């Protein structure tokens, strides 16, 4: 089973004293804030869950694996995620 935004909205709606619209809006606000933080180049540390890092990648020579042609991959920023120790342990205790 895959968790989607709709599932999060449903969960918030069921758990809190909010209308469906308010629940949806709060989930959107949560995503807007987290995305805004990362888009601004700032790391996001959520204790107990994990840390989202914005990493700078230098430009480098790459190759198109299909044609074998060399090309320059431009400098870019990527988002990485490191799960917290708590989450990692919980995920592994399940086996």
């Amino acid at each position, binding site marked *: *089973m*895959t*968790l*989607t*935004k709709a*599932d*999060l909205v449903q*969960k*918030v709606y069921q*758990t*809190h004293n*909010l209308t469906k619209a*308010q629940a949806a*809006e*709060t*989930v959107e*606000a*949560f*995503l*807007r*804030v*987290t*995305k805004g*933080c*990362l*888009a*601004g*180049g*700032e*790391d*996001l*540390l*959520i*204790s*107990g*869950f*994990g840390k*989202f890092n*914005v990493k*700078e990648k230098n430009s480098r020579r790459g190759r198109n694996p299909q044609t074998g042609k060399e090309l320059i991959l*431009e*400098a*870019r*920023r*990527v*988002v*990485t*995620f490191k*799960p917290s120790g708590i*989450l*990692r342990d*919980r*995920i*592994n205790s*399940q*086996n």
Partner: protein
Amino acid sequence: MNKSELIEAVAHEMNMTPREASDVVSTILDSMSETLVEGDTIEIRGFGSFVIKKYDSYLGRNPKTGEKIKVPPKRLPFFKVGKELRERVNAKSN
């Protein structure tokens, strides 16, 4: 940004008390954690997806002593950034 700053920002956007915002943010994060603990996938359009990767046990080495050790099988969550977020994060650098 840390969790309390995230909660503050959500409270501000939603005109909620920090307490209310904290409760809702906890519900969201708990629900995400629970999904991963169950080994299931999270898919949030525009943000990204989380998938659990399973690793078999393998023979590793202690890099300090060179001693061989058996690494037990493990599961780790992987995050793949969504299209919208990837583009927005990148747009700032150019």
